[in-house]
């Protein structure tokens, strides 16, 4: 972000612009609260895990987009950061599935 007020003489400060910051905070707060609610009310399973992962990505979006200000950067920078990250997040997801697959293989071998 550009420093718009670079020429402001000391003592004469513009008004704080904090509306977006607090809005983002409340979104993060409610998503986390909802996660807790689900953790205690919903039975465990694939659906619950998917909802948790989805909500994590929502939180990650708001932290990166608003707090880290990436949403307001130049497109090239956004892609430079996002594209590698998307691949590596896919790797984490793939390994969760792969782990389950290895488990099936190994434990079914033992049973025979």
């Amino acid at each position, binding site marked *: *972000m550009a*420093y*718009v*007020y*670079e020429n*402001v003489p*000391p003592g004469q*400060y*513009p008004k*704080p*612009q*904090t509306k977006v*910051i*607090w809005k*983002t*905070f409340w979104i*993060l*707060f409610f998503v*986390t609260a909802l*996660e*807790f609610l689900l*953790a*205690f009310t919903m*039975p*465990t399973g694939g659906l619950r*895990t998917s909802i*948790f*992962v989805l*909500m*994590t990505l929502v*939180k*990650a979006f708001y*932290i*990166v987009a*608003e*707090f*880290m200000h990436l949403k307001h*950067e*130049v497109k*090239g*920078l956004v892609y*430079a*950061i996002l594209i*590698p*990250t998307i691949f*590596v*997040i896919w*790797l*984490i997801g793939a*390994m*969760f*599935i*792969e*782990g*389950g697959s*290895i*488990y099936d293989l*190994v*434990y079914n071998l033992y049973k025979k």
Partner: protein
Amino acid sequence: MAHSATATETKSKTSVWFGGTEPFKASWGKLMMWYFLLSDAFTFSGLLVAYAVLRFTKPSYYESEYAKQFASIKEAGEKFVSSDAYWPIPEKIFDAFPFFHGQYLPLVFVGLMTFILIMSSVTMVLAVEAGHRRHRADVEKWMLWTILGGLTFLGCQAWEWTHFITGTDKGAVRDVWMNGEWVKQTIHGANLFINEYGPAPFAFCFFTITGFHGFHVFSGVLINIIVFYNVAMGIYDRPGRNYEMVEKVGLYWHFVDLVWVFVFTFFYLV
């Protein structure tokens, strides 16, 4: 800067990648912070990938013979017993809170830690905002709150680790290899090789992942203190200087918060 301004005048818009301009419209310092964070994200992803494989190559509690004797998933959940044969349910393990000894308060403490870290992220972004206004007193105030939040989080984590290592009063019976034979022994707490909560990789992942994250919080607090010192000394108020350094440490601090969001989901909730 003056150099790049004259260069852009003579070049058309299409030559944005041919030098003399700032294609990303960000200073080199900020770009390098972004690239550092990207590489750091890969490091954390490496840990999470290892965790994913270690966890799901173990049976889950609900698939165990013990859990299957109960009529419903709910009842099985209530009658949870830890064993090294299956991965534990995290909310049954992380159920302690300081000064509430022996009470079952699942995930409350880790919820508080999450709240503290998100809150400190908010105060950090408020410090950055104050920096844009060049309001030194506000920057100082919000940076101090951020440092305090970071220290509180570290304190919470120290307590959490102490509790995890010390263990519960009850402990758990495990087979331990002693003098050439397997012996049944009640063990308390956890180390890298054996723990009362579940298979060895459970504690191993806990120590590495939360430990590496805690190390990031620790270094974040140190960098915040250095930048706070610079702010308080008025270094960023000097002619030609601005508060961009607050923004750069802010990026790092938000990243630490971001990592915690993922650790929280994958280690404590799933």
